[in-house]
């Protein structure tokens, strides 16, 4: 017997989402069990099962924690960028000769 992770799709345009796990001797049996455990009441229209041992993940989850300021990876990090740029240019002008250029 092995553990199978179960993924369910609500509608044909939706992504498959993890919804639980079943214990079964093989993939066909896992599908039958998954249908009964996770698709009993019309919660979706398609199911996948995958052996848990076939799913790979990081051994060290701390590698996934964000380190330092990653605001530049978010759209919000670019909010008000025009105004900030103008301020920066003004500062450059000010530092390079008090506007005499």
């Amino acid at each position, binding site marked *: 017997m092995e553990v199978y992770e179960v993924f369910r799709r609500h509608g044909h345009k939706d992504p498959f989402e993890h919804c639980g796990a079943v*214990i079964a001797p093989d993939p066909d049996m896992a599908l*039958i069990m998954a249908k009964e455990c996770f698709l009993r009441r019309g919660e979706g229209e398609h199911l996948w099962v995958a052996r848990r041992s076939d799913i790979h993940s990081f051994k060290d989850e701390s590698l996934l924690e964000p380190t330092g300021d990653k605001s530049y990876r978010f759209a919000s990090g670019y909010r008000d960028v025009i105004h900030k740029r103008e301020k920066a240019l003004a500062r450059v002008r000010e530092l390079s000769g008090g506007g005499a250029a």
Partner: protein
Amino acid sequence: MDDALRALLLAAADDELVIGHRHSEWTGHAPHIEEDVAFSSIAQDEIGHAAALYGLVAEMEGSDPDAIALGRKPEDYRHAILCERPNRDWGYTLARHWLYDTAEDVRLEALSESSHDGLRAVATKLRREERYHLLHADMWIERVARGPVDGRTRLIDSLTHAFPEAIALFEPLESEHEALERGLLPVPSDELRKRYVERAARALDELGLPTEVGAGADAAAEFIASSSGDLIESDDGADPEPAGRAFGGRSGNRSEDFQPLWEEMTATYRENPGASW
């Protein structure tokens, strides 16, 4: 009262109700939690199918499906004796599940050509759900048949008990002649029984399971000795019927296993008949 249609509908509906009840006894006790859920779900489906068929009877008679399902005396039920047998162990339950759902497919295939509109529609709809039951049963039987020897032995023992009784699912119905004449039942029970035995025997053979558990004159002698049903013998002797036992369910002969099941199944209804839920 349309006796031919009533007999046809009740035979199928009572089979579903009674086997559904037996299946439901596994709830909380099945070999593992996922199968507990799966098998309970199949039990509910079977009882749902019974409700659809009782609905047709109720419509015809202007009565209440619950009263038909639960308000009759034990001798008024028309299911095959196979359905009322206790679950014994998981091996027997699986063997019966497989034998029953294979038979059900043969029956529904025929009924989906019935001349009765309501029955034709219900049979077509039920058959879609039964496809899944059959898949579930096939999968289990295949795995147990090819698995370790203990499971395989239990399965074979169970088939040896259950197959001869499953043949009685195709015992001729009361008023069958009329049902055939009017096309309510498009194929005679004798013909369905032959189709069934052939199909089941072929499947068992492919799994390397002994097929003589279901057919063969040698086995008949043993089955005649059974106390729990009448063996129906071939009319002419030229075309021997597959050996079977536990016939008589379609005319209301019950084994000793039915009374306790009936008492439990109908207890709530009998306390307050006609209560609405």
